[in-house]
């Protein structure tokens, strides 16, 4: 029951993260900013619109958002909630999760390619490029956690992450968290990898791929992006919140709070640094990769 409640909570709360990010950014920009719940309204509005399809597209263009959303929904079933078991937890589930996110990416990219628009193709090209560098870093970060905790499922790993582990292996966990954070930014197309607020198609990654989508399709994409933000953010929150109390409510509250703190941190980050040049992004991801490798080395040396 709790598991279902957790899952529903994720489904309802994740669009709020984007609202938080935007409010924080507006605060730093000295603006009032859009309402916190704007995304909910947008989604609602979009679901009721009639889409417009390009003549060059096929069924794949329509299937892209569906698969993208479905895959992320499934991936979320694997992601732990406040260090507690999710309902699709098994040994090796992290592999399934990463590959499900890959499926979502693959579907989005193909849908973008279906339009035959150079801009969307360009975005798709960048999306796959960054994934190539981000995914090994992500995998190795999880491998470091697995070696540290001796567990092979995400839920068990984070459940096994106690304050004692943090005390004894703070350096490892800090490195892992840093790596995860970079991957989190890259995979969700946040600054410094991508700027969701830019208005020039040539410089975008994720947004540009959705240029042609409209109506419910666009709603699925936006919602899927919000869920993905939660999915990856949850891993970081779980990593930095090692303490588990007996009460599910306390834990959940703390965890959700942490998620918003994370969103706020992203907002702060986006306000104080600029987007990197595309050529530099691989270096950033390599940094994450080296953090993961370093974490593994420290872990091995312990």
């Amino acid at each position, binding site marked *: 029951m709790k598991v279902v409640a957790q899952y529903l909570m994720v489904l309802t709360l994740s669009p709020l993260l984007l609202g938080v990010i935007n409010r924080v950014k507006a605060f730093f920009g000295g603006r009032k900013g859009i309402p916190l719940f704007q995304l909910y309204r947008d989604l609602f509005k979009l679901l009721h619109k*009639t*889409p*417009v*399809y*390009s*003549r*060059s597209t*096929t069924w*794949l263009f329509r299937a892209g958002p*569906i*698969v993208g959303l*479905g895959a992320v929904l*499934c991936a979320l079933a694997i992601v732990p909630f406040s260090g507690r078991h999710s309902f*699709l937890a*098994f*040994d*090796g589930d992290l592999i*399934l999760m990463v*590959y*499900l996110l*890959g*499926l979502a*990416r*693959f579907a989005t*990219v*193909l849908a973008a*390619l*279906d*339009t*035959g*628009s*150079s*801009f969307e*193709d*360009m975005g*798709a*090209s*960048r999306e*796959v*490029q960054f*994934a*190539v560098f981000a*995914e*090994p870093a*992500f*995998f*190795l970060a999880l491998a470091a956690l697995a*070696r540290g905790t*001796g567990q*092979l499922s995400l839920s068990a790993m984070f459940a096994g992450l106690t304050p004692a582990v943090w005390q004894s292996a703070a350096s490892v966990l800090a490195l892992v968290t840093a790596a995860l954070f970079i991957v989190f930014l890259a995979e969700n197309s946040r600054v410094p990898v991508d700027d969701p607020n830019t208005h020039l*198609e040539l410089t975008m990654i994720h947004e540009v791929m959705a*240029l*042609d989508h409209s*109506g*419910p399709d666009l709603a*699925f994409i936006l919602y899927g992006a919000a869920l993905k933000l939660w999915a990856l953010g949850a891993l970081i929150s779980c990593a930095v919140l090692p303490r588990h109390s007996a009460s599910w409510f306390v834990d959940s509250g703390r965890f959700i709070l942490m998620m918003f703190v994370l969103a706020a941190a992203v907002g702060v980050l986006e306000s104080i640094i600029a987007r990197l040049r*595309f050529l530099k992004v*691989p270096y950033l991801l390599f940094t994450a990769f080296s953090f993961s*490798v370093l974490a593994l080395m420290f872990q*091995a040396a312990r």
Partner: protein
Amino acid sequence: MLFSVVSVVVLLFSALLALIFNRSALKTSAVGASGAVIASLTGLIPVVKTLIVPARETLSLPCSLPVGSFSFVLDPLAAFFLVPVFILTAAAALYGVDYLKQFDGKKPLGLAWAMFNVLSASMVVVILSADAVPFLIGWEAMAAASFALVIFEHEKSQVRKAGIIYLVAGGAGALFLLAMFALFGIGSDSLAFSSFTRPAGGLASVAFLCAIMGFGLKAGFVPLHIWLPEAHPAAPSHVSAVMSGVMIKMGIYGLMRALHFLTPWQPWWGWLLITIGVVSGLLGVIFALAQHDLKRLLAYSSIENIGIITLGLGIGVLGVVKAIYPLAALGFAGALLHVVNHALFKGLLFMGAGAVLHAAGTAELEALGGLSKKMPRTAVYFLVGAAAIAGLPPLNGFVSEFFICFGAFTALRAPIQTATGAVLTIAVMAAIGTLASACFAKAFGAVFLGKSRSLKCAAVHEAGPWMGFAMGVLAAACVFIGFASPLLVAPLSAAIACGFGPRLGLEFSAAAGIPLLYISAGALTLAAVLALITVFRKFLLRGRKPAAGPTWDCGYAAPSARMQYGASSFVQPLTDFFQPMLRTQRHYSGLKGFFPAGADFHTEANSVFYNHLYAPAANLIKRLAFRYSWLQHGRLQLYILYIVVALIALLVCKL
């Protein structure tokens, strides 16, 4: 075993009939294809039986030979390899019925069908052999038959070049195998597998290296792979499917059998296999990324997949040596299952590529595009293959890659050395996975999505019914394995137990049973979720008609199909990054003057190893041969002098 023999006989007999009916394309196709299908169906009976109830059947033909004997054995490992062979050859034969129609009237098809069936038969013989001599006979028949098929369109000089490279690679590989078997047979008069003595010490390592070279040449280990990207595109597509799907796996099969005779293994063998896997996997996919030709791309992707299989084999060997059995079991399982999976989806993809080539007359990615509108069925099948080969759930490619990755994860807590191997495996698998998905997004996108880039795509038609059926069967198999993976535990564990010891079989069942159930559940969930969302979307759009318009062009007034992002542009950030390995050559004739006429820019992803390793070596030997050709100078006096000098030297040294 009886049915296996029947299937080989049917194959050979139908090959003969196909030759006899050479005059009529219809008859020869009917005979050839029906022979292959009947043989596959009969052949599958004992195979499935052996996999369900592990058993060991033997057969010995009464043939007197001075060395070797005609003995055969069907055990679970052999059966496991026979499954893809039978399925793929049957599908490819059906596909070939339609595919070869384009040559009707231009070429007699009898030889092509005969060679196809001989190729199938020879693979069965290789797998069933329990003696070096029938093994090598099957092996060489396989090489010769596939060579004849590669050279099918021998009027093209490109094809002849591919043929020569393929031939030489095959010949060299066979010599290594000869050496390997000779080493195994050192201690006995016989060359039967059962009589092999384990070579001691250094000789074991030499035998292992011979196996790596001999089988690696067939499997396409980097840098022994150079024949592969030449030969596969040259062959007719259903043959490419069989070659890439199952024939190169015979190298893996042979390696597994050879490992069996080489116990105890050395740790460095595992490391060597891991290295080969890493290098082949990464370079294979990186080269695949840079290709312009769909069939070449698929050929390089085969190298990548062979890399994955070898990686699995490598961690398996390492696991056994270091006594980390879950790692070993999962590594071997991953390798084995990937053999089957790759046969299915690579066969499917080559058939898709063939359908495209057949329809559009070219497999050049930059000239294609938008074909999914004209060939919707082929597009769906190709998409299934592409997603499967990228290792995406819920398809079969994910399951085997999961085994290897999961195996590596289980070994993370192992001592530092093994853990390093595990970490390397994880990182490389992740990189290969994403690169492959980029590569196949490019391939699928360039061929089937967007708008057509050239006039060639205008007259495109959907693939013929048999072609469609063959692809459909393979696509269904890909989906089936993805969803029903728990069913694989028993046959896989039987094959592992047979090939690598019963302990590993049990270990595999223990380690993989539960995760596979979850994966299956995950796949079903995904399917359910997708169905739900689709229904939801239908519900939202009820009674509304989506409007149609042009693609958003960011305000540019007159876009043309040629202005679409090309396949090379799509991967350009990645190929730029890997330029040191790819050594892509750029040819640019820039704009000159005030009224520039035309400009041209194209890149060529040449075979790096061929240009920088083999061609110089071959030239060196040729130059050496040339330098010493004055020995045969034409002068009698010189010739007599050789005799005198040799005689004197012999008298001085030997008397």
